[in-house]
């Protein structure tokens, strides 16, 4: 009996209902083809709703969820990556990437010193290869890198 499948099924059902409701609010344009912009999304919502119901009523056995520390790692990693995305334009590529890559290396088991080195290497390495050699535009911070 899986709580996970039921929760995901319930969420899917909610998404299907919500999108179906939003689909009915799509303004029908003045000139349109016989189907219009609403019908296909509604068909998908029905399909998603049925599949979600299926998961809700006949769930698979519970997957193996990690213990709390594992979940915390994923949550903290998410926070760091979101912060990275937000701060990239403010700090610039090299500084932001140093922190994010260093953090990930540290959490994956590198010692703080080695994680710092990894942060520097990954950040400067990507900057050198993708920006200096290949000419890709990277986020520019206040110092121009």
């Amino acid at each position, binding site marked *: 009996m899986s709580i996970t499948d039921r929760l995901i*099924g319930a969420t899917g059902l909610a998404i299907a209902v919500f999108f179906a409701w939003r689909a009915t609010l799509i303004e029908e344009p003045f000139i349109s*083809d016989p189907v219009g912009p609403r019908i296909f999304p509604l068909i998908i919502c029905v399909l998603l709703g049925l599949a979600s119901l299926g998961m809700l009523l006949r769930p698979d056995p519970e997957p193996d969820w990690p213990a709390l520390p594992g979940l915390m790692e994923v949550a903290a990693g998410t926070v760091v*990556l979101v912060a990275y995305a937000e701060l990239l334009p403010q700090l610039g590529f090299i500084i932001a990437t140093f922190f*994010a890559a260093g953090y*990930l290396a540290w959490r*994956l088991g590198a010692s703080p010193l080695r994680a710092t080195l990894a942060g520097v290497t990954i950040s400067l390495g990507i900057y050198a290869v993708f920006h200096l050699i290949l000419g890709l535009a990277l*986020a520019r911070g206040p110092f121009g890198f």
Partner: protein
Amino acid sequence: MDILASLGDGFLIALTFENLALAAIGCLLGTIIGAMPGLGPSNGVAILIPLAFSLGLPATPALILLTSVYYGAMYGGRISSILINIPGDEPAMMTCLDGYPMARAGRAGEALAISGIASFVGAFFATWGLVYLAPQLVKVALLFGPAEYFALFALAFATIGGVAARNQMKAAFAMGIGLLIAMIGVDLQTGVARFSFNNIHLYDGIDFLVVIVGLFALSEVFIFLEHRAGGGVDAGRVEMGRSMPTAKVMKDVTPAMMRSTVIGFIAGVLPGAGASLGSFLAYTVEKKISDKNGTFGKGDPRGVAAPEAGNNAAAGGALVPMLALGVPGSGTTAVLLSLLLALNITPGPLLFQKNPDVVWGLIAALFIANIMLLALNLPLVKFFVQVLRVPTRYLMPAVAMISFVGIYGISGSTFDLLVMVAFGVIGWLFRKADIPLVPVILGVLLGKLMETNLRRELTISDGNWWALIDSPLSIAIWACAIVGFVLPILLRRYVRFARVPQTGDDLTGQ
């Protein structure tokens, strides 16, 4: 011969110095990616697509580079199967069964050489199969109208959901989510905004590259974070033994390679199967035919040759429906389809007529990549073995950061980066809950096309929905779709299936 002339033109396109250099770089990079823990053909190629796009490579060179990476990664996956009993990607799973015992018996070098040669044989003949079969399929496809295309998309979803997933409900769920994501943004035909919630970023819809990189690459990083699995792999003490098999061993494995190539190619062409099933079937059949003394599973060279020839032949076969119809049959071909779409190339019968240079250039590139891979792999095995030792605690942060660089390069928008992180988390959650990711990707890629074909058909028929099933061709395709979805459910109920490798060909790291 018409086809050979076209292929000759393809070689003229592919055989420039620049393209050959790109193919060589792609093969090397691909083999490294394939050998690395946690990276395989689909997430490796997924990370590289936005980069190739941002670098502004023209279509043909970009295709050559990335298909070389794809083929290279297929080759690379077997190295860790054989040396450490951990498949580098899912199609390489069956290679563990006899490859690892061979390595334990001090025949690692031989096993690597046999698998390299078998990969070459499988891929080489499958590419010839592609050359001859794809144009035939194109002739059929030219008869297709919008109703047939709509049915064909349904067939792709049904078979991928039916054959590859363990739970059809979950496949349907994943497909629904993917299709809904495709619906976000301005409706192409009427210009009204759908599900954009007055958010400027959502008017253009969600870029499929953002979804793919999030689901395939970032989710892998989360899996490693969850387990705090940052160690390297110790492949140091393996006895390599001789690096080339004897003539007698080669004579033994040749029929196995030939049979497996045929089986793999057919499995690849069929919708929904892909490389994992190709190697699984090839191994199973070979075991039935050749395992007279019970040597399979204990280090029989034929047990290494069969799955490798099978999975590489299937990878080539899977390109047939992808190029000729625009409908991918597996996870990795879905990623290749996204590459084509990112380059503004829509595969399908019209591609063969309008852009024969792209098609035949690509096919020529496949031949070149194959020969290069064989040449690279035999002498460079020792180097690739070193790659296995890169600890994931340094590799995964680099993978995550390169994913960000690629997506940032497309649009320079923080919003896309946030969406990618969100899909990374969703991908992790889905993988934990055993919900396949490939139908999500297919939904995102094909949603708009599917809707366009539906609406085109109904415009022609003036709103008559029966028009969707009023040609024998479309009825036949729908029938296949239903059988493809329902039959596996019934079979599973009566026969206890040996576990067929699930989902995206190569989502490992569990």
